[in-house]
């Protein structure tokens, strides 16, 4: 691994110090994670540098199970003595909490794992000069600014490399390297008493994949800047989206958010049992629904896959040491399985964890996170084919804002852009398209999904969960899909 900060034997020695201390103090299980993160984020706004940051963190976290209660302690100091001290702090905290637990934590069985895993990339973005990277951003930004109505721009790219070493008291010793890249452009137009924004390839920083700089080159940011600029300006005077019930096609990046919020989060099994109720909320997908609940129409297949090529949550093993897996959450519209780790798989009665336990760097303990979770492609051909087939309706795309209730039922999303579809073609733009629904009814109304040629693993780099808040990344592969009789709120 070229992300090595220390020699391989030293990692093991440091981990051993933590594991042995935990065991000596009474831990029934312990693990040590050492994480090195390297990031680069560049941004240009209105012809000036808006962001330039390179960062590294290198730290260690020790997790213990004592008397059926968890304890965790972390620090950016990767040394044997530190690992030992952290183990002691974690044990003391767990011991204090243990008598108050309603039931002790129990884990599913897992064979110890050993080995190394790495994501794949062609061009290491950290080896490309910032001058070259900035030149690309400035070129796109200059095109975005060629209209006086554009009052704000942002062109950005960001890269993250994470090297992690995991050792457990059960004998797991694995390391893994993940590299992801992302980029995007945004233009905001102001006028006519309105503010309108357009983005490419997606909003909120663009599109992210587990790839190298080749991903950014493939976007052709300057080549898309003129379209983005003109769409932002045109939206200022576009008619507002009407309200009522309409057939609607959702573009891929918008549908990815829908998958995230209405399928991903409600199927985290810790959330289902109420463990997230104080902040994020609970879930309508209660345990008795497994195996029989109709989540969507028969063409809706939603697959969790920690092995997905280019997926942001693609891993060798999760932070329980469970190998990457692939499974159906929803199969032919019927709910099949949840997202679990070893603790909550046991609560569910499963023999094995689904391998969805992931932490944000070294700072915090792992928790159940949404893995790559995708809507499988259908047989509706291209987006053009689907519009043609729909005849009349709307095409909405690109996330603008979102909100969903704490049980993940009532949602309301607004997209950056919408088009009225007439006679199977884009007739004109509509502004501020907002749609609203209740999750099972929404997925039940899905009657056509575009084919594999339109399927993209859309990246979510900023999913928040937990207290303290942790961030996680994942991808949601999907192709544009049609929903019958969706409620539009009026622009």
């Amino acid at each position, binding site marked *: 691994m070229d992300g090595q900060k220390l020699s391989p034997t030293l990692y093991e020695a440091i981990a051993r110090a933590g594991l042995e201390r935990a065991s000596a103090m009474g831990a029934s299980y312990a693990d040590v994670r050492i994480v090195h993160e390297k990031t680069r984020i560049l941004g240009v706004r209105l012809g000036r540098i808006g962001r330039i940051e390179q960062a590294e963190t290198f730290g260690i976290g020790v997790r213990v199970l004592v008397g059926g209660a968890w304890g965790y302690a*972390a620090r950016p100091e990767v040394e044997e003595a530190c690992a030992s001290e952290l183990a002691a702090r974690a044990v003391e905290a767990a011991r204090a909490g243990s008598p*108050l*637990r309603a039931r002790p934590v129990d884990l599913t069985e897992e064979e110890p794992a050993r080995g190394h895993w790495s994501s794949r990339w062609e061009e290491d973005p950290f080896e490309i000069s910032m001058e070259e990277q900035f030149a690309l951003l400035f070129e796109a930004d200059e095109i975005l600014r060629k209209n006086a109505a554009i009052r704000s721009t942002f062109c950005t790219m960001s890269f993250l490399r994470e090297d992690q070493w995991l050792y457990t008291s059960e004998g797991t010793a694995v390391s893994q390297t993940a590299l992801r890249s992302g980029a995007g452009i945004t233009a905001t137009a102001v006028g006519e008493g309105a503010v309108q924004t357009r983005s490419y390839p997606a909003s909120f920083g663009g599109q992210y994949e587990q790839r190298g700089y080749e991903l950014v080159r493939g976007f052709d940011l300057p080549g898309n800047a003129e379209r983005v600029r003109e769409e932002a300006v045109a939206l200022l005077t576009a008619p507002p989206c009407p309200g009522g019930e309409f057939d609607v096609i959702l573009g891929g990046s918008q549908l990815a958010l829908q998958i995230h919020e209405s399928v991903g989060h409600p199927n985290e099994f810790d959330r289902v049992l109420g463990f997230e109720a104080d902040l994020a909320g609970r879930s309508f997908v209660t345990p008795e629904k497994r195996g029989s609940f109709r989540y969507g129409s028969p063409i809706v297949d939603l697959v969790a896959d920690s092995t997905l090529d280019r997926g942001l949550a693609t891993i060798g093993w999760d932070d329980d040491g469970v190998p990457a897996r692939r499974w159906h959450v929803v199969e032919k519209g019927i709910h099949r399985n949840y997202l679990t780790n070893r603790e909550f798989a046991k609560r569910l009665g499963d023999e094995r964890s689904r391998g969805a336990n992931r932490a944000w760097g070294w700072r915090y303990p792992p928790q159940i996170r949404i893995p790559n979770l995708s809507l499988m492609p259908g047989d509706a051909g291209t987006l053009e084919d689907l519009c043609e087939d729909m005849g009349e309706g709307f095409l909405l795309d690109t996330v603008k804002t979102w909100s969903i209730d704490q049980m993940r039922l009532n949602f309301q999303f607004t997209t950056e852009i919408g088009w009225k579809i007439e006679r199977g073609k884009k007739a004109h733009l509509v502004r501020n398209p907002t749609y609203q629904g209740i999750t099972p009814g929404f997925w039940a109304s899905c009657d056509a999904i575009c084919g594999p040629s339109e399927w993209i693993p859309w990246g979510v780099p900023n999913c928040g969960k937990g207290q303290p808040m942790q961030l996680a990344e994942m991808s949601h592969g999907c192709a544009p899909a049609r929903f019958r009789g969706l409620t539009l709120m009026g622009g």
Partner: protein
Amino acid sequence: MSQLPPGRDVGDLRLYKPPGIGERCSMLSKERAHGICAQVFEQSPTEDVEVLLFSTRGNSLRIAECGPSEQNALEEISLQIRVVREGRQGRARAASVDPASTGEALDTALKAAVLSPPLELPPLASKSGGGDGGQEEESVTALAEHPPAEKIAQVREYLEAARSEGLAVTGFYDTEGASVTYATGRGCFRHAFVGKARFSSTVIAEPGGAGVAGAVRQGEPLPDDEVAEVGRRAMKKALDSRDPRELEPGEYVVLLEPKAAGDLVMFLAMAGFGARGFLDGRSFLSGRIGTQVLSEKLTFLDDAGDPRFRGLRFDCEGQDRKRVVLVEKGIAKGPVWDRPTAEEGGTSTTGHAGPQPSVSGPNVSNLILRAEGEATKDLMEGVERGLLVTQFHYTNLIDPLPVTVTGMTRNGTFLIENGRITGPVRNLRFTQSLVETFSRVRAVGDDGRLVEPFFGGSVVTPSLLCEGFRFTSSTEF
């Protein structure tokens, strides 16, 4: 969402600190922080170098099923370096504060500056300004080292009581202390301690009941009785909200408790109180300074010196953070500024800069909606038919100029009829312009307090009674 936290006497934690270990990661004293900054300046070939240094230490208790589900302890140091070479900016963050790591980060920042296109920003600060604000080192240290066992002891009675009543309790109790340092090679050095303790708890009472309560203090721990009171309030609210009935969406008079009002206040601020959006024409204050933009009952100000905050009195450019009146009795006064936006706007900074260069520009940091209202207990009296809202969930911005947002009610929504609560109702979604809402304030309560909105941060706000609040759809619980 994000945050910090607080505590007390630590004792047992120190038992496990071998000599020399941990010192580097504990909260940095002024002397230690000064030494680290001096180390960077000695390594730097230029005096145009800036250091932002944060150190934090704390621990937290998560609660689920009426017991601890997670107990975490975290120490962290973050050192960011900015260098300026011939008008070119470079930034980097170090993995640690040892000389090798700071040297490496400095080298990265210098390379970044060489490779970057020119960006003229105001020169780095050379003076240290006025007082640095923050809180006393001793009290912040107590927050940083608050023992996990003490947290358990403070919540034990509450959890046992809830369990015996068949209620499900979740919650989060954390304490944290931090030191913040800003320094430049040109001679500016500022340093302060800040810490926080907070406890929030949500109780589920079947059928269909849910309640929430919370407490937060800056610079001091939560006393036992305040923690216990959070538990009592959350349980009562959950029990009172059982068996909610369905209510038609539509326009209602709403009585917003501080936690609910805080969410809306934070969105109004994010959309409208920063100079970047103001200059771009994206703020509801843009072009309206001196005019009535909100209800005359409302005054918004940003004040790090308020005793409920006791926040930092300097910003990420090393400038004094001033007390700023943003809206006075409904009349727009102006946004908060950093030096780049102030230069652009022909004014002076108010000391609200984030790390430079900045895309989003300055923002409020210690926001207060000043309460000069009537007794909160009387607010309900004149309401013929309305709703009491305890908390909003997942509010988000749709349109920045009218500050139109959408979100859900949560954890206790009650129907008010003829001046009194007549029962709980199922949750509703609202879609509403906040400029409109804050222009239709019928009354302001006298219960202004520090609350934490859903997406983080802290604001001081009282209860608000607002007319014509638009609920647009309902849900199933």
